[in-house]
């Protein structure tokens, strides 16, 4: 190996080392932020669920005989607008609202899985940077193999949901 090539190789290695160090530091920082976010979400969900259960118990006592009147039509509603729906028992209205809340309160589990997946991806990036630095003198083929193997470790996200609407049900 010529003197010039040796110097270039040492410089490349030094750059990779520096990159691996920065990458490691930053990804560890972001993973810490994600863990904090996960904890906050869990705490928020637990508090919401506790309030939800208390409200549910209260509602089941209060709504038994009450009725909810339909909202009056706006003043500018056309004369031929359909007649408002009949009054519904408050218990029906409450049951419907609680049902929607049960669906929405599942946000923490879904968010937590996304957070966990994001953290795993960051960990993989950190590993790749560290491997590249370790293999600084290796051939491009060896580097390519390492990158391919590291990329293969990345699993697809377990979460496809974009909204908190009800998921599909399938019986086999």
């Amino acid at each position, binding site marked *: 190996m010529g003197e010039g090539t040796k110097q270039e190789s040492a410089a490349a290695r030094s750059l990779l080392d520096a990159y691996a160090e920065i990458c490691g530091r930053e990804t560890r920082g972001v993973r810490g932020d994600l863990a904090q976010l996960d904890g906050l979400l*869990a705490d928020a*969900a*637990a508090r919401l*669920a506790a309030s*939800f*259960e208390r409200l*549910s118990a209260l509602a089941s006592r209060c709504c038994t005989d009450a009725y909810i009147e339909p909202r009056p039509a706006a003043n500018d509603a056309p004369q031929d607008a359909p007649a408002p729906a009949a009054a519904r028992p408050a218990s029906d209205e409450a049951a419907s609202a*609680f*049902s929607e809340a*049960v*669906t*929405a*309160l*599942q*946000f*923490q*589990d*879904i968010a*937590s*899985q996304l957070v966990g997946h994001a953290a795993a991806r960051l960990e993989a990036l950190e590993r790749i940077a560290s491997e590249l630095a370790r293999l600084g003198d290796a051939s491009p083929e060896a580097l390519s193999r390492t990158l391919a193997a590291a990329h293969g470790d990345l699993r*697809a996200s*377990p*979460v*496809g*949901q974009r909204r*908190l*609407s*009800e*998921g*599909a*049900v*399938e*019986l*086999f």
Partner: protein
Amino acid sequence: MAKTILAVDDSASIRRMVGFTLKGAGYEVIEAVDGQDALEKARARQANLVLTDQNMPRVDGLSLIRSLRALPQYRAVPILVLTTEASDEMKAQGRAAGATGWLVKPFDPKRLVDVIRRLIG
């Protein structure tokens, strides 16, 4: 006598919402925090239906289903998977493992109860 459902999920919030829904519908609910815990509780007490998450520490949902199906007392018990995973590949794996059905989170309480009533009354 109330039918018993073993609800398995590592998420406390999901266990809470499942428990709220199923107890409200008249079922008795045993909670387990992962597949390992579920296996121990399933051996200790017979459940009429198992509702399990897929992604869990120690023992995941598919491994739990395979282990339960190997137990004579759980060969015919309905096992539903309740998970964020919605890919056809995962569903096929669940079916091959012995799952009875696949529900994608978040669940709607009324729909969940309807499905369970269809399976165990």
